[in-house]
């Protein structure tokens, strides 16, 4: 059921087949077997499984409706119409059955009869978008433009809703699957809104419901890291790599967590593993470069910044560091080329770029350009409130002006 709920239909079908063999008189397994076949686009197998299930519980209405739908998908509109009609006779208030009967009759070319059932479905469930849509199409074909328009308007208002299935077996399955998924999705949304504690709680609930969720553990590494609950992040990392040792995001999030915890050597190793798992991970190259540079290996750092920029030309941070290392290595034209690409769009970090350009120009001996870029850096630092830079830039401006006047 867990596999089914997580849309791993092939594996779920295999499990259900075993269960049906082991417990042939249990309705639930035959029914789920039918549902999963229908959901994976195998209506003939679905219909056969529904037949088996309905022999055990002949009056299970949701099962009869689904068998009728499978018959239609299978290309048996006559039998489908019979099944739907029988359901409608037993349960005249079943909007889904009326809609299905309308579909089957329309396929048979009995358009006016189909319309009666589409109308009935719309009456029973006024925001039934599929029924309004089908009715609009049929009225259009029959030349009744006014009714077609009315149904199209109702369709557009209906926000794509359908009547709830009232199927306890399906609901049990949905609770299982959507539970974990829904909690993960909620967690991602909460994290994006900055509600990290609540996000972690939602994520834990997702893992409780689906312990095989690698992504749940991966997300929690990051969340606990940002909450500075490092030991819990560590546990989540161990759980994630136990499930998938080459999950690049697990290593990456762990690397970021270790960096935050100032465990720099371990962080470097984690980013290295990220790159091994996914050589195209530009952020991992950038972060790895930053850490190896910190360990006094500018050559290796330059190689990885360069790779990050190659993989992600829009990666401004990596490009900035690449330019900075070019400057330090005396490759001043290369540095200027990289800095120039970072001047637009302007943001609070553009002052650093202008300052970098000024530095490279100064080392090239071009005092005029150095002064120009220093002034621009200063203006931007003031504009964006970069107090960490303004004092230093004012000092450099004075020095540059003096040297130029000589």
């Amino acid at each position, binding site marked *: 059921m867990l596999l089914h709920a997580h849309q791993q239909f092939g594996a779920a079908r295999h499990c259900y087949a075993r269960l049906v063999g082991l417990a042939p008189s249990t309705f639930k397994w035959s029914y789920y077997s039918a549902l999963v076949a229908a959901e994976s686009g195998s209506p003939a197998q679905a219909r056969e499984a529904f037949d088996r299930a309905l022999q055990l519980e002949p009056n299970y209405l949701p099962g009869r409706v689904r068998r009728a739908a499978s018959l239609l998908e299978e*290309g048996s509109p006559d039998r489908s119409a019979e099944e739907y009609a029988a359901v409608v006779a037993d349960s005249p208030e079943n909007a889904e059955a009326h809609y299905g009967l309308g579909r089957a009759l329309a396929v048979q070319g009995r358009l006016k009869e189909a319309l009666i059932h589409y109308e009935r479905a719309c009456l029973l469930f006024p925001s039934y978008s599929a029924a309004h849509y089908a009715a609009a199409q049929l009225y259009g074909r029959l030349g009744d433009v006014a009714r077609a328009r009315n149904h199209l308007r109702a369709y557009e208002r209906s926000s794509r809703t359908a009547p709830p299935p009232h199927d306890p077996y399906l609901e049990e399955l949905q609770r299982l699957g959507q539970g974990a998924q829904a909690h993960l999705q909620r967690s991602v949304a909460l994290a994006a809104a900055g509600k990290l504690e609540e996000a972690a709680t939602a994520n834990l609930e997702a893992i409780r419901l689906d312990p095989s969720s690698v992504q749940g553990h991966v997300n929690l590494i990051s969340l606990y890291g940002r909450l500075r609950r490092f030991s819990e992040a560590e546990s989540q990392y161990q759980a994630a790599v136990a499930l998938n040792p080459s999950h690049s995001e697990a290593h990456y999030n762990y690397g970021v967590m270790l960096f935050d915890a100032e465990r720099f050597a371990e962080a470097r190793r984690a980013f290295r593993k990220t790159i091994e798992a996914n050589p195209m991970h530009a952020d991992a190259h950038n972060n790895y470069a930053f850490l190896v540079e910190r360990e006094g290996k500018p050559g290796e750092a330059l190689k990885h910044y360069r790779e990050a920029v190659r993989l992600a030309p829009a990666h401004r941070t990596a490009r900035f560091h690449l330019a900075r290392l070019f400057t330090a290595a005396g490759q001043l034209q290369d540095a200027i080329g990289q800095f120039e690409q970072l001047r637009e769009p302007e943001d609070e970090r553009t002052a650093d770029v202008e300052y970098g350009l000024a530095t490279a120009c100064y080392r090239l001996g071009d005092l005029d350009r150095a002064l120009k870029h220093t002034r621009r850096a200063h203006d931007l630092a003031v504009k964006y409130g970069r107090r960490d830079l303004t004092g230093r830039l004012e000092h450099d401006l004075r020095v540059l002006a003096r040297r130029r006047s000589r």
Partner: protein
Amino acid sequence: MRIGLAAMLVIAATACSRRPDPESTPAPLFREAAEEAGLVFRHQNGASGAFHLPEIMGSGVALIDYDGDGDLDVYFVQGDTRAKGNRLYRNLLIPSGKLRFEDRTAEARAGHAGAGMGVATGDYDGDGDPDLLVTNLGPIVLYRNDGGSFTDVTSAARLASEGWHTSASFVDYDRDGDLDLFVARYVDFGPGNARSCKGATGELDYCTPKAYRPVVDRLFRNDGTGHFTDVTGSAGIGSATGPGLGVVAADFNRDGWPEIYVANDGEANHLWVNQRDGTFREAALESGVAFGEDGLPQAGMGLAVADYDHNGAEDILVTNLTREGATLYRNEGDGFFTDVSALTAVRRLTYDHTGFGAAWIDVDSDERLDLMIVNGAVTVMESQRGHPQPFRQPSLLLMNRGAAFESVQLPAAEAVSRGAAVGDIDNDGDLDVVISNNGGPARLLLNQAAPGANWLRVRLEGRQPVGALVSLEGRTKQTKRLRTDGSYLSANEGYVHFTLATETPPARIVVTWPLGRKEVWPSPQPRTVLTLKEGTGQAIR
């Protein structure tokens, strides 16, 4: 002087019995022959690990006899701006007699290097040879064919359009005797607004088009002197936006004027109904081709249009996402369509696949059109997670058995397929397929399903023949339109191809030219390539 450096570590990312006998083991219907024929194009998608949407969407391929020597050459669109650019492979079948391709891009001057998406073909200048329109994530490029080499005439033709262009169609929408141009556009993706998206549960993955704003497609009117005018607004095309991917033109309501159908990804498809006064009205919803049967939008990508049920009206096949299945809209002939995907088993057979390029092709020569659909996912497939390209799916061939279709195996390996173009590449009278695979080698599938079958190929020459309707009246009445558009980002051959289920020659062939003239030619001989010139047949009403 020190560089002012803020710590910039990135920390945020988480995130003869000619038909196969069903009782016996069928011979392979197609043979994979790209490499042996020298068709060695390899698409590069520029994937960076950042999961930028354009990486996963391209690219297209065109079959075009650019040098007019009687065999089909192949033009591939390249995706990565850092690669060598688009490639043109010349078919050496004529005069060598051996199917062999050579890269003649440089000589033909057709190697545009951009973030390539699609290609369309059409003789926009009416000089008798097919020209090329290349679409990009970026400006479109028009290549004029100057008798076997190309000139970029985009500026001279005043053809300017920015944004993300996808499929295109040359269509004479105003029936003035020259080909106008419709170009679909996708979303407002640009270098400044690339988004980073994650799967529902947090893993990094490609965005859906919902992450961006849909945009307006473009219509350019050809003034007949080699210049185009952007008439998007005045023609009414600007009245609706959509993430457009597939485009095809056809006279769906049979009033003599072409409509334009656009497959939109995740939103209502568009049917632009020709108002016969230079304008269009969007009427997909009321015609029944905006959504699937249940009224839900689908991820429309590729298109294939043909009269598959021989009722005289052209039907529409739209390829969609996995777990939507492709949608087959049957044209009822009165301006309304019915979704018959379930009834014909098309939905069931395509349910597990994300479809892109598609074509109607009678593989087993039973005069019933079968369906070729090439596939490849757009988000990571769990079963392939960890593979460098976890998006691979098999191509599908759905055989038309009358009331419904059934699936048969194809030899092509699983791939991330996108563009597909159909034509008789080896000049043996049946239709072959060339497939462009995202981030992988192209495939050439040579048809060997019915080697002894009868066929008839028609080449039309007229003032502007694209859109002409050709009816072959034999055992059945087969009606086909001369078109190269459809599929996904791709262009098919510019012939009308018929299969014949019997040895008996058809009684006659009738051509309805785009400007309305109707002519008949008696007793066409099977196994020939007929060239029919406008004005040389017997005029009929």
